[in-house]
């Protein structure tokens, strides 16, 4: 990891300030807190890391593991790491040069990412960054992205000036198949994913799509808007023009028979209740502040690769081909015809899912499209997979004995589609 290398200075990259933790802070930081000790090849030396319990199931399950010790996310996976605010205060107090442009600035397209506990919000955000790291292999976004365009900024609260972080380091855990820990209230972080595009009469100018992401606690989102949390909710979601709501596909459309265990059914109930609560709170927020602007809703149906889902045809036609040959699809999507064909397919899939919602016997599911309609027209339903949950599970349960370095990189599937929809919403990019 680059962050392990002693890099005492703050350095400039492309006129932007990128932050390296000083050696004094990086030294105690150790990786792989989420893995079982016996399966970890590169076991952390710090005994504190052994206290981190093992996790299992889908990525979202671990996010929801409220009783587990907190795993600092996303900076460095170490429980020893001092609170982020402290890091900022001790390490950067004298380095004003690291300041970046503030979060609240004109022209930013606010994209909110919202969901209850354990639905995979953090995975989705990391998968988005992972997907956009290489502009040529960014799926449907490749057509638009300029070279070397992805920038990630982080801050602890919106009033602070954000810092630029190294994107490849930021997704290190994700790339290494390390389970992301649950985000709790004290570790909330603000992120901005900035994507750069060619614009101008001759295509020589640049414009940006900034995706604001509050990596907050799903539990707190479900808990509602308290007086002390209202400002955070407002900053994160009130002005958003595009909202990405996360719900696991299997929770919306559980497989029939005995595919789901009792625990799974119970978890499903929790997820749906949490989702309903989150939607209710978002609606309340808009009503309380008389927000009338339309919001384009995108329902990200996460974990679409999960076999607990009843939609096997969808998985086989929409997810599996991509997983089996991602390079073929990514290369095809770089072209104008590839993007057009992909969007045509995505629209059909979204429409089919709309009908699938309508066919559900569970009124909480069949009424869901209406509940997430905030005046900007029909919602998008995007089945996606941020990471192959089966591989993650099997690796963590010890079924895979290979070192992590032997694993192929994760293949996020269709995670860039919400970004493309947001880009079209904000920049009318199709026309």
């Amino acid at each position, binding site marked *: 990891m680059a962050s392990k290398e002693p890099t005492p200075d703050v350095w400039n990259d492309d006129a932007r300030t990128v932050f390296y933790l000083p050696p004094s802070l990086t030294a105690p930081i150790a990786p792989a807190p989420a893995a079982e000790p016996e399966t970890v090849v590169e076991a952390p030396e710090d005994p504190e890391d052994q206290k981190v319990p093992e996790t299992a199931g889908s990525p979202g399950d671990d996010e929801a593991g409220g009783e587990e010790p907190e795993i600092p996310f996303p900076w460095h996976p170490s429980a020893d790491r001092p609170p982020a605010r402290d890091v900022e205060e001790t390490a950067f107090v004298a380095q004003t040069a690291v300041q970046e442009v503030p979060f609240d600035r004109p022209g930013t397209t606010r994209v909110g990412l919202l969901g209850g506990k354990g639905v995979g919000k953090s995975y989705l955000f990391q998968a988005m960054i992972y997907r956009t790291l290489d502009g040529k292999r960014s799926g449907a976004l490749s057509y638009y992205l300029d070279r070397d365009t992805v920038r990630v900024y982080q801050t602890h609260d919106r009033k602070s000036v954000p810092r630029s972080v190294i994107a490849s380091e930021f997704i290190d855990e994700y790339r290494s198949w390390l389970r992301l820990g649950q985000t709790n209230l004290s570790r909330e972080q603000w992120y901005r994913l900035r994507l750069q*595009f*060619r614009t101008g009469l001759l295509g020589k100018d640049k414009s940006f799509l900034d995706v604001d992401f509050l990596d907050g606690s799903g539990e707190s989102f479900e808990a509602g808007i308290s007086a002390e949390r209202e400002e955070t909710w407002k900053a994160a979601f009130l002005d958003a023009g595009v909202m990405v709501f996360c719900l696991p596909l299997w929770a919306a459309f559980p497989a029939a028979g005995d595919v789901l265990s009792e625990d799974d059914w119970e978890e499903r109930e929790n997820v749906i209740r949490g989702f309903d609560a989150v939607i209710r709170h978002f609606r309340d927020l808009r009503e309380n502040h008389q927000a009338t602007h339309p919001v384009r809703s995108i329902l990200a149906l996460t974990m679409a690769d999960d076999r607990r889902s009843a939609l*096997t045809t969808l998985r086989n036609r929409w997810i599996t081909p991509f997983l089996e040959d991602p390079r073929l699809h990514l290369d095809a999507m770089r072209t104008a015809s590839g993007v057009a064909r992909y969007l045509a*397919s995505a*629209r*059909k*899939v979204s429409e089919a899912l709309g009908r699938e919602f309508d066919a559900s016997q569970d009124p909480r599911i069949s009424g869901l499209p209406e509940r997430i309609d905030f005046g900007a027209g029909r919602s998008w339903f995007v089945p996606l997979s941020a990471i192959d949950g089966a591989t993650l599970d099997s690796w963590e349960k010890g079924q895979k004995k290979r070192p992590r370095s032997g694993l192929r990189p994760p293949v996020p599937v269709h995670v860039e589609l919400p970004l493309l*929809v947001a880009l079209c919403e904000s*920049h009318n990019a199709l026309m």
Partner: protein
Amino acid sequence: MAQTFDAGHEETERDLPGPLQSGWYPGIWALPATTLSAASLVVLGVVLIFLLAGETSRALFRLPFAPGWALAAAVLAWAVALACRNRPGRQPPRVWVLGLAAGSTILTLVCFLGGDLARSPYVHAGALAALAASVTLLPRLLPLQPDDRLVQHIAPLALAFVLFVTLPVSFYIGRRAVEDQKRRVGETIAELSREAGEVREVSAFPWNSPERRQDALREMQRLQVLPLEQWLPDRYLWQGAAHLGEDGQLAAAYRGLLDAVVAGIDPARTPKLWQSQFTGSSEGWSRDPLFPDLSAAVAGYHLRTGQLLQRLAPPSGESAALRELATYYDQSKQEVDKRLEVLAKTWNEDWVPPLIAGRGPASGPALSPLSDLLRRPLPPDDSLRPASLEKLLDLKRWQARKMADPKRGCGERPYREGDFQYFRIDCYAYAARLGSEPPGADLRIEMRIVYKSEVLGSLERSDLPTELYFLFPVPTGTDPEKYREDVMNALKAAVRAEYQGMELTLEDRTSSAGFTFQTGPRAPLVKVTPTRRVKDLSGGISGIEVYARTAATGRSRPAARR
């Protein structure tokens, strides 16, 4: 027995596409920005081919008010280019809309400023095609989201709609253009014939009749207002006429008008100016009130006939009729040029060629040197010139009367003043005034051969002149004293040249001094004397007066100033 309920979902949608749907439908060949650009390109090509593929359309297609169409195309294309400039995406749509906007702008400029080119059927077809192409791009202004079904259909729909509207419109305009062209060719033939008749009528007018001066002015005015310019067939009308098989008639009408104009430039038929600009009397000098109108009319006649001749230069073209016409025009022009060469060597009309040749005011009137002008022949037989002072002073009155020909710039003036009877032959030379509006002529030299009777006597046929009188008005902006020197130097040079370098006796050493000369031992002594004072002719214009007398007839004071 209690029924069991499976809370699992039953999949209903099984007809799902893969991530990359394939198909032939053009709507999914690219994103709408690109497919609309491609549709726009196709529209441009199809409309151009539709309009220019047929020979008739290619020769005759005209848009009513083409600049408006081109301007609309440019405005729409620029609106799309500017509105879409901040949209992300690749180059082809940007390049296309920018190219279309630039091309439409150029077409607009050509239509507004392009002159002959602005009437080209290609330009008109380009304007219509550019407008159709720009309209095809207009859907790019719509805020279309990916979930909209129109995303895949917008370009095919735009293409179909624009072609559906544009092709019938093009066909209709093309038909109208053919009919218009037929009508225009017919009207042009008629108008050229009418104008030829009018030019012939005007040039046949008896200009030298002093009692019909007002009619003459009206005739010249007719020539001025002849609307030839708006009826001159351009190369595209020639093309249309050739296509309609009427180029022969058009060429005949054209030749008829050309012949009439060339005939109107014949010096034997042109109006002449033979009038003094200033009138002298016992009260002094004043401007002749008739002179400005008369000079403007005569100058205007020459200027207009010259313009007509130049306008009638046929446009270049490939048709046989146009080639023949070009040859015919060149021959006519050569004929006119020869006439102008002759005119440029005359005493009274050397100011006319610059007007007919259409020399601009900036190039100046191209004045002949005074010394040359003074040696120009007065009667056509070249026997007498203004510098032939001795011969003129020896000219009997009956001989002098032969010089009174307005075509040569001379006229006779018999009158009585006090106890004396006078007879004068007045001859005038002019300089063209091109810079003024209307253009006209200024008197350059007035020469009088003055005959005067004895007190209470009468003039006989064989009387000799008492004096020669020259008036040289000082050109505006010229120092009178300097001009007097120029005049006297020119007179000396002309007299020397007239008498083969004869020695002149100068009154003093100044350049403006008078002189005497004697052509032989028995010849009378001729004395040439400028007045000491430069006369104010009127309106701040001064003049140089010079007298020539023989010793026998010489008197110290001028004989007549009327």
